[in-house]
Structure formats: structure tokens, C-alpha cells
């Protein structure tokens, strides 16, 4: 499924043709605008239901988006400039679609996220133009949204040519519990790129991102940790507990024992086995079993 074929009733109605002249999105026709049929780039979003999907398009001035969401969801949402491993980051821009299960009415809100401190708040100014087509596909609602790339509203993210925006989707069945982050199998989506290219009203792609999969690398790090730790323990116990255990000298030393210096250690290890035995004017007796060297030097 991409989209149900658009049964566009009235081509003469209020297209936003002046800003999207190749395809056009009509927010007053009560149906999915036929322009979306030409937008062939889309992404299936399981958070919005099995057949949930999202399309984006834009021209030089406006961003167009189309969401197909399961009608039995209580809400569905998109977060812009999303963070990997976190959701609803404080101050982030987002849109939420609330679905009234009694009336099937869908309300679209332009919102600002507040982290886990509370639910998102509505923007002071709603800069979204929307049209909701209820049950155009059985069990699914379709939402068309048009927004200026730069609304001038400080609560909204401003898009510029060439931007790659990280976005994330969530819904009432796929979100982090308690507003904490960290996607689980029931959590919000992975991050997608929203590519904004304004040349010639080109297609915007919410594509599978070509980015570092941090969850994968976390797993690798954990495997490495256990591999290194247990590998070290195994090797150490094999060498020092079984094959060649160390015979430590008597730890009791006399009062004239002086802590070995770097030079002393180097010379007693690599210096032809000899050392002058003096350090700061004192005889060095590192341990009984090494005193032979010192006696020899003296």
C-alpha cells in the first residue's frame, strides 16, 4: 500500500498551486489531494499502525506532509530535531494528532515538548494548515498538513534549503513509558532524516537514515566488555594461578628501605643486572630476593 487512489472531486477548488505548482495540495476538498500520488517517496511507520505511512514534499516556501494513521490510536505524533535515545526533548518542536475515539474527530496541534516534566504544550500560534480525511481507508485517517518552511515563530523549527532534520514518530501504542527515552519494542520510532531540498519543488524523503546505529554499537560495547573482562580473568588465572604463580617476597621491610625510582627500576631490570645500590644516599633493599644484586654492587 502506498496510498489509496486519490478520488479528487474538484480540481478547481483551493489548490495551493502557487507554492506547489507541480502537484498541489488542496486542504479544502475533503479528500487526499492527487498531488500526493506523484510523491513516490514515503516511509511506512509501524508506530502509526501496520499500514501507517508518512510522505513529505516541499517547495521553496512550504513543507507539505501527509500522515496515514490507524484510527484506533488515541494519538500520534512527530518530533522534529529528535535526539537519538531520547524523546520529547525539552524545547523540541512537534505535531500531535489527537483522535477522539467517540466522534472520530482528529485534532492537530502544533506543540512544544517539555521532556518528562509534563505533556507537550500547544504553541502560542498554530502555524499548521490541516485537513483530515477520516476513514478514507478503512481503519485509517489521513492528515494533510501544510506549513511555511520558516513560520517566524520561535516555537517552530525553521527549515532551510539543504537541511537534514532528524525526526521521530510515536503514538499512543508506541511511546516511552513515563516520558523517559530509550526506544523499546513498544517505544517510538528510530530517527529518520527529513531532507529539505527546495530546488524545483523536489521530493522530500523521510528515508531510512544512513547513520550510525548506536543501539548496535551499544551491544558491541557490551559484548566487548564481557569478552575483555572474562578473557583477562581467564588468562590471568591461567598464568598466575596455575602455570606460573608468583612467589611474593616477605612484605616486611626494614626501616632503610627506600621506594624504588624509575631509574633504579630500569637499571635493575635492564642495566646488565647491576646497580650501584645507592639512592638518595641510602642503600636500597627492595626485597630480600633482590638484595644479592645490591650486595654484588657494593
Amino acid at each position, binding site marked *: 500500500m502506498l496510498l489509496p487512489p486519490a478520488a479528487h472531486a474538484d480540481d478547481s477548488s483551493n489548490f495551493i498551486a502557487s507554492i506547489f505548482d507541480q502537484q498541489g495540495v488542496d486542504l479544502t476538498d475533503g479528500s487526499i489531494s492527487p498531488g500526493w500520488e506523484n510523491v513516490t517517496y514515503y516511509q511506512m511507520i509501524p508506530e502509526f499502525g501496520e499500514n501507517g505511512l508518512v510522505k513529505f514534499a516541499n517547495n521553496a516556501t512550504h513543507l507539505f506532509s501527509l500522515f496515514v494513521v490507524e484510527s484506533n490510536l488515541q494519538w500520534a505524533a512527530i518530533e522534529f530535531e529528535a*535526539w*537519538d*535515545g*531520547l524523546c*520529547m*526533548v*525539552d*524545547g523540541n518542536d512537534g505535531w500531535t494528532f489527537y483522535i477522539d475515539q467517540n466522534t472520530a474527530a482528529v485534532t492537530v496541534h502544533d506543540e512544544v515538548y*517539555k*521532556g*518528562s*516534566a509534563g505533556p507537550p504544550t500547544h504553541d502560542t500560534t498554530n502555524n499548521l494548515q490541516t485537513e483530515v480525511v477520516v476513514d478514507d481507508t478503512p481503519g485509517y485517517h489521513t492528515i494533510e498538513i501544510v506549513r511555511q518552511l520558516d513560520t517566524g515563530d520561535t516555537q517552530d523549527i525553521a527549515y532551510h534549503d539543504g537541511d537534514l532534520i532528524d525526526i521521530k514518530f510515536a503514538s499512543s501504542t508506541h511511546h*516511552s*513509558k*513515563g*516520558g*523517559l*527515552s*530509550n526506544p*523499546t519494542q*513498544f*517505544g517510538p520510532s528510530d530517527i529518520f532524516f527529513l531532507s529539505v531540498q527546495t530546488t524545483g519543488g523536489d521530493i522530500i524523503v523521510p528515508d531510512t537514515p544512513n547513520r550510525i546505529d*548506536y543501539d548496535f*554499537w*551499544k551491544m558491541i*560495547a*557490551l559484548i*566487548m*566488555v564481557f569478552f*575483555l*573482562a*572474562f578473557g*583477562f*580473568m581467564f588468562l*590471568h588465572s591461567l*598464568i598466575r*594461578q596455575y602455570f*606460573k604463580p*608468583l*612467589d*611474593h*617476597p*616477605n*612484605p*616486611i*621491610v*626494614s*626501616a632503610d*628501605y627506600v*621506594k*624504588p*625510582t*624509575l631509574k633504579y*627500576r*630500569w637499571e635493575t*631490570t635492564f642495566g646488565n643486572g647491576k646497580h650501584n645500590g645507592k639512592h638518595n644516599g641510602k642503600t636500597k633493599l*627492595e*626485597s630480600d*630476593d*633482590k638484595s644479592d644484586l645490591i650486595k654484588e654492587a657494593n
Partner: protein
Amino acid sequence: MITKSKTIEETEDLIIAKRYSRIQRTQHWGNVILMIILFLTGLEIYSGIYVGGAKFTQTIHIWAGLLVFILSWIIYTFIIIGERKITEIIPSPRDFLDVVLIMGCAFGILSDEKYPHYDFYDAEKGKYINKYHPTQKFLATINYIMLFFIAMSGFALYGYIAPGNWTFFANIGDWFMTPLINWGIPIRFFHFLVFAYFLMSTMIHFYFTMLPQNRERLRGMATGTQKIPKAH
């Protein structure tokens, strides 16, 4: 003021030496308890499966994180500076060489006669000399630094998901983590990597405490004293 270790008891065969001060043991066992709490609550956050609710876990985690950071940084700094343990705890160039020699001995490149022995005790003066294994000194120092990074990244994360709480710490964490953000490294991923370091180093540390030859040292960390045989 210098806290000088004294021989507190002597028998025919043993010297019972004071190995760890009360403040050192407080820091160590406080760390153990708090690290366990941090590990369990961190596991909840990582898995998304919460016992007692997300906010409860989050609160416990952030409080334990703050406590371990303060406990370690304040007490550890006091031990190093106040108790004048700089050369005892901070690795010196000789410790670098000793680590190389230890490795050389372990892999048969050097004979065990060249092994740089440590942990001597001057019974006359009642003090330890070269008290710690060189890798233990590296461990303590790296832990000290890593604790700073895991705390700062934790504070920053808390600021993003719970704005308005602990703003002071959140801002400090955010400031230190800004270069990371600019490099495009997720703070949560960084936080996890530092945790992975602690997990690995703690497992190895725990392994060494369980070795028979370290039993008396472990006893020292529990009771403060260590039995040292007079004759080897």
C-alpha cells in the same frame, strides 16, 4: 594533617597493620552500594522496563549519581591532598614501567625475578611502601576521571528530559557536554560507554579481590586492618 598508619597489634607470627582509614572504607563501600543502585536503575532505564515507575527510577538514579559523584570527588580529593597520598595513589612514570614489566613477566618475556613487587610494610615506622599494585593506581585515577564524565553526561541528560529540575547541575552538565553534541555524539551513547568502562573495570577489580593472595587486603577494606606474617 597526615594520618600515619601505625602497627596496632603484634603477635609472635603476625603484625596486624592498619591498612585503610575509616574515611577510605566509607568511600569505598559507599561507592559499592551506590554503584549497585546505579546499575540496577540504569538497567531499568536502558530496558524501558520499570519497577516502581519511570519517575521513581529516574529520581533514584539521579540522586545516587549525585551522591557517588560527591562522595568520590570530595573524599578522594581529601585522601589525595589531605592525607598526602599523592605518590601512593597517583601513578608515576615508574608505575608505567612497572605495568610493562608485569606484562613482560606474565607473558614470559621477562623472568619472574624481574617482577616489580609492591605492597611492602615498614613495621618500624608502621607504614606501607608501594602499597598498591600499579594497575590499581591507574584504575583509581581513571575511575576518578570517568566518574566526572558519567556524572556530567547524566546531569545533562536529566536536564533534557526533566527541565526545571536540578537546573544548576543540568546546566553544568550541558556545558561540559556541548563539545560532544557539536561532534554529533549522542550524550546517552557517551553515558553508556562510560558505564561500559565501569562495568569492565569493576568486574576485573572484583576478580582480583577474590584471589586468595588478596584475601588479607580485602579484609583490610572491611575491617581496616591487615594481618601480615612476619616470616614468609
